[in-house]
């Protein structure tokens, strides 16, 4: 089919070329001929440009099936297993949000994202769940289990007659073509081609980096390999073909667990969420505190550098000659956020350094300006009063490595998950008239033990002056690199 199309294109181009060749060979060169030659030469250029392209296409086409066809095949085979998930607001009876999901076993279990169905988890009295299949049949869904850290949820439907998708493995090599399915913007089921680009390296939890366009509404949909096996679950996008998938392994764990849950249904999802968050933060903070931290130099200070592979650091300095004090800043943060609700994300941590040097001010004036930054803390999320309590702060002078510092340690409690807190620690050196350093540390969704351990390690790693090579004066921790 394709080779015939190319030959049809080839014939009308070949005719004038042959005509021109015969003219050239049979007649002597004259002025009109030269004109005509030039004219035909330009055509020749076009033709020669076209011929190799036409020939290559004609040669390659029959050997491998086109990707579009592959997508078509996958779409046709699996579209019935993929559903739209709707969260219905009970009072209005209208959908409050939509997402995608897919059948994972013959008992009607459906996998989707936690963030798709989160409203019904937090407010089961205000929302219910329903599915819409490709053939427009609908039905109710009930919540079975969730994995809030990896943004996964399993719901139960009454679908029994549809073949479920097979869960494959996300152990692929970079560059593998994969296909994402879902219902973008409620426009209907669609398939998106993209490339597997490995697991995200700078992340607290595994995520597949998918070079393809995921759009709102596709969340919870499956991403398949060529064999039609699920390799990941669509979860988020950073725009411009930067999309992320949850590796299918986490879904497998959740599915296995769903069998247990079947026997003893979960009635307190708040407790389940709290337990999962607590387990996650305790594990990563433990690893963080146990690891050796590399150090970084900021002015005369030796400070924790990128303390984990998941941290991204940036730096800047003021070069305003009119400014009365010199200011350099450096900030590091982990980008991972665990979705709890539209306005409430958690997980992750951040820390910043602000170095100030007094040019020629009185110490009172210098401390006034330097202190203006002491009250500004890192904002870890935009949780509202339904989600968190007010911060409680303890402020004191603390001696760290022979210098006096003022530390404000603040924590606020998660109302639904009382063992978890957002913490901010603001630390300012107050023993020097000529320079100052403000260190800010924040972590979201940690328990008291993790918060204390992390804070303790961090504040002890703050050192004035270079790290001492003399073992007698060796600082307790903070000797990474």
């Amino acid at each position, binding site marked *: 089919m394709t080779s015939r199309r190319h030959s049809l294109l080839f014939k009308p181009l070949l005719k004038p070329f042959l005509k021109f060749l015969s003219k050239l060979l049979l007649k002597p060169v004259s002025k009109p001929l030269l004109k005509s030659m030039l004219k035909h030469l330009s055509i020749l250029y076009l033709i020669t440009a076209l011929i190799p392209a036409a020939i290559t296409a004609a040669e390659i086409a029959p050997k491998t099936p086109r990707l579009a066809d592959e997508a078509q095949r996958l779409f046709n085979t699996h579209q019935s297993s993929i559903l739209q998930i709707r969260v219905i607001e009970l009072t209005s009876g209208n959908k409050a949000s939509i997402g995608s999901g897919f059948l994972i076993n013959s008992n009607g279990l459906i996998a989707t994202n936690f963030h798709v169905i989160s409203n019904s988890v937090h407010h089961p009295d205000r929302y219910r769940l329903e599915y819409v299949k490709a053939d427009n049949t609908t039905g109710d869904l009930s919540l079975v289990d969730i994995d809030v850290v990896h943004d996964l949820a399993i719901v139960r439907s009454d679908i029994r007659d549809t073949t479920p998708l097979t869960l494959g493995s996300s152990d692929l090599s970079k560059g593998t073509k994969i296909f994402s399915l879902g219902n973008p913007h409620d426009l209907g089921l669609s398939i998106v081609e993209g490339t597997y680009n490995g697991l995200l390296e700078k992340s607290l939890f595994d995520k597949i980096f998918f070079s393809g366009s995921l759009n709102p509404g596709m969340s919870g949909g499956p991403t398949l390999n060529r064999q039609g096996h699920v390799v990941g679950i669509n979860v988020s996008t950073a725009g411009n073909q930067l999309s992320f998938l949850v590796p299918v392994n986490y879904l497998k764990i959740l599915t296995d667990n769903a069998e247990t849950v079947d026997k003893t249904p979960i009635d307190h999802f708040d407790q389940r969420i709290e337990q999962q968050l607590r*387990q996650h933060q305790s594990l990563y903070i433990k690893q963080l505190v146990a690891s050796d931290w590399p150090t970084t130099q900021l002015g005369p200070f030796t400070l924790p550098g990128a303390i984990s592979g998941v941290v991204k650091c940036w730096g800047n300095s003021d070069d305003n000659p*009119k400014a009365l004090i010199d200011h350099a800043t450096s900030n590091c943060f982990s980008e991972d956020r665990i979705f709890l609700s539209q306005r409430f994300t958690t997980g992750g941590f951040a820390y910043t350094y602000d170095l100030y040097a007094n040019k020629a001010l009185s110490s009172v004036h210098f401390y006034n300006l*330097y202190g203006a930054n002491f009250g500004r803390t890192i904002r870890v999320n935009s949780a509202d009063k339904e989600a968190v309590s007010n*911060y*409680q702060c303890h402020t004191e002078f603390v001696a760290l490595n022979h210098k006096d510092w003022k*530390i404000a340690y603040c924590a606020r409690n998660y109302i639904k998950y009382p063992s978890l807190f957002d913490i901010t620690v603001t630390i300012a050196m*107050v023993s020097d008239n000529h320079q100052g350093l403000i260190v800010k540390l924040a972590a979201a969704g940690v328990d008291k033990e993790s918060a204390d351990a992390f804070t*303790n390690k961090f504040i002890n790693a703050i050192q004035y002056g270079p790290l001492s090579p003399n073992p007698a004066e060796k600082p307790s921790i903070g000797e990474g690199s």
Partner: protein
Amino acid sequence: MTKIIVEELNRLGHVTHRHRYHSLPIKVGRAYHNDLILSDAYVCPEHLVIDEADNGWQIEDKSNQNGVKFKRHSEHSHSNQLHSGDDIIIGRTRLRLFSPWHTVPEAHTLSVDNTLSHFISRPIIATTLIITAVFLLILNAQLASTQSLTMIKLVAANLPAFFVVLFWGGLWTFVGRTIIHRASFLPHFIAAVLLLIASLLVATLSSYIAYTLNDRTIATLFEFVFMGIAVVMLVYINLSNSTHITRSARLIISHSIAWSLLLFGLFMQYAAQPEFNPTPEYNAELKPPFAQLVPSKSPDAFLTNSEWIFQVDTDKALRTSPSENLTP
């Protein structure tokens, strides 16, 4: 020999004219042949006659309109007999009759507040205080500036404070003019300048207290008490310079004004606080090393002392402890 003194009083009870008579009777009215001629349209041309009586005077009502009323301050008065110190009201005029031997109260001793008012009104003191206030205001603005400011900007930043002080001085001058017919701007103005200086010093001291004690409450209490005392003193000086009320009345009024103003401010501050604050609140000022008067703690002690910040508000929290019996 003076037989009677007749005072004309205005409606506030202040003496406007004082007449001295050597013989009685005295004819009072609007007509020009009277001994006491009143320019009050509600007084008849011949309204009354004051004549001698036992131990006082008797009044003969000659009016055909409006009549005569009495306001007696002395005891044992008969219907139309008056004694020294009693008032006659005719038309809209109040007359007070005195015998030359009427006893007057002892002189007030010059009080401390009068000497203080005089002291701060002395040109050299007033100038010094104004210059001190300007200096402190500018210093305050300069120490808070993030860039080097020109003098014009520094002055402009402090003009509102000076307008408030001017307004306060002007207000009390007006009060004084109305009540005691004496408009003395300088003591009021300088007293307000003194308050401005005091408030700058108290605020600075309070921020240092809050910094070194790591406690805003004690600093606020300190600020409240000292500002209260300063405002009481200001209002007291204002009252003594613009009214003739007694010392105890002055104290009561100045205390009520000062503390109600401060309590109102405190209440408004409390009421304006949002129920939920997404950012932490702590005493976020930093001071130079000399201001640290308490020794630093060790990190471990600090973390132990901080434990209370993790206390869960059990009223708000839906549950107090996580359930332990869930499958992982």
